């Protein structure tokens, strides 16, 4: 029988649960040569801050045995430019709901970006990144403390006219306490996990591979940790969770949904194979058939 891949996030209908993760997909343009990106459920665009940022010095990328490190450091053209240039360009080629990924260094900065992006018609979910491991102050600092996470959630919710999803850091002792703090502060949903803080060393040069020394670890190597945290969080909160962290196949998507995720994001996989999301979406019906699943939205947390 024909398979139903559709899912719903806070009332937002997605044709399928596969969403490219922020920072691995730009604003979609780079993937146009490889496939029609309208097959995606949604798209979480490159993390945006109030002002333009160049980001961290290079090298910003390090390879791992089963993944990669990045220390890009929130390079982005700033929210005005995103609204003036990137979103109109994206609108021309992508006609599905967009997730606006927002970062900042102060509560005020988050609020300012949300005020501007919440008005964008195609933006249907606001994903508030309080877990960037690559910037001093702000970023992850907000995501490792329940009170700080709650403060940003409350402030953002006051100006948001779209569902607010807080993107959580895995680099914490108790992710459930952060998740509950966000839920209690009014978050409509959660995205997890952001990258694990990692490091690699160049043995010949005898120095860290990354100019910024440490960076965010993503790829299949973090999948078991991501799955565990999604399972823990979905057992503790009543708001929807977008699961991410190393997802590279249709089986990974289904496993993450069995851990409790309502949708998923695909990150590093897009960088090693620009067709990764396409392949995953195309594989899903067969894997559902193998597992006796007719509707992805029927999947229950194990």
């Amino acid at each position: 029988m024909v398979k139903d891949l559709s899912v719903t996030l806070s009332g937002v209908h997605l044709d399928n649960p596969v969403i490219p993760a922020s920072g691995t997909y730009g604003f979609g343009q780079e993937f146009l040569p490889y496939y029609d990106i309208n097959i995606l459920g949604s798209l979480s665009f490159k993390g945006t801050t109030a002002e333009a940022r160049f980001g961290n010095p290079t090298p910003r990328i390090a390879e791992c045995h089963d993944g990669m490190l990045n220390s890009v450091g929130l390079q982005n053209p700033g929210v005005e430019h995103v609204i003036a240039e990137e979103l109109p360009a994206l609108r021309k080629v992508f006609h599905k709901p967009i997730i606006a990924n927002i970062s900042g260094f102060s509560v005020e900065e988050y609020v300012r970006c949300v005020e501007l992006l919440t008005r964008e018609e195609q933006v249907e979910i606001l994903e508030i990144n309080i877990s960037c491991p690559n910037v001093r102050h702000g970023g992850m600092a907000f995501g490792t403390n329940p009170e700080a996470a709650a403060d940003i959630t409350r402030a953002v919710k006051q100006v948001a006219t779209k569902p607010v999803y807080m993107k959580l850091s895995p680099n914490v002792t108790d992710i459930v306490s952060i998740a509950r703090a966000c839920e209690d502060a009014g978050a409509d949903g959660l995205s997890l996990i952001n990258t694990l803080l990692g490091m690699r060393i160049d043995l010949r040069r005898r120095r860290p591979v990354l100019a910024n020394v440490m960076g965010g670890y993503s790829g299949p190597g973090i999948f078991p940790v991501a799955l565990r945290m999604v399972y823990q969080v979905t057992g503790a909160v009543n708001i929807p969770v977008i699961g991410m962290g190393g997802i590279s196949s249709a089986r990974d998507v289904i496993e993450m949904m069995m851990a409790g995720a309502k949708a998923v994001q695909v990150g590093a996989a897009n960088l090693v194979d620009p067709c990764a999301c396409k392949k995953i979406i195309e594989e899903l019906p067969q894997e559902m058939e193998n597992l006796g699943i007719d509707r992805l939205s029927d999947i229950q947390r194990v």
Partner: protein
Amino acid sequence: MEFRLLENTPLTSAVWRMRLGGDTAGITRPGQFVQLKLPGFYLRRPISVCDWDGDSLTLVYKVVGQGTEAMTGLRPGETLDLLTGLGNGFDVNACGQRPLLVGGGVGLPPMIGLCRSLVENGKKPTVLAGFNTAAEVFLRDAVEQLGAPFVLATMDGSAGVKGLVTDAMGDLDFDSVCACGPEPMLRAVYHAAEVPGQFSFEERMGCGFGACMGCSCKTKYGSKRICKDGPVLAREEIIW
């Protein structure tokens, strides 16, 4: 895209040539690169295209780490997953009638395809290659087969002019320059030749097609991605 390994042989003790068969329609300019997926490695390896024709391409690579080491173990007949036509490459039309193509070490390979394109466009390129010593020299024949002069500079003077490529530039007649090699060499060429120039840069990359912002660099016209907006930058853009 799937390519078939046709040949993989050493040119020197550290430099190998790999020929791959497959659809090269994606390659539009010399100086572009491919992203090679290697079994057992997570990230692809960016390798500049030395030269190509309708159904095959040549890569000349230096063994510098575990990835390139593994490449030497690949055997003819194996299929490899490549992304092709990556990067902007050199603009042949932006070159003058007598361009000087400067290649330092493994910066030399892309100059072959560039030299061929220039010759095909009726221009008269000269190739200037820099190496540490005579034993490291490769691709000389490839240049001479294209009918272009091959000028050599070696640090130890064991072949050609003794010293840096810039030590050999003084006597050469050219109206524009294209350079690829270590950044110190690019800088030296930039300052030695105040003519229209295109410079090919290297940076550690994530995706290789502009998505991850891993290889950004600052230019006079804002931040650029070496993998997508580069690897070739025009003289006017560069901040030195």
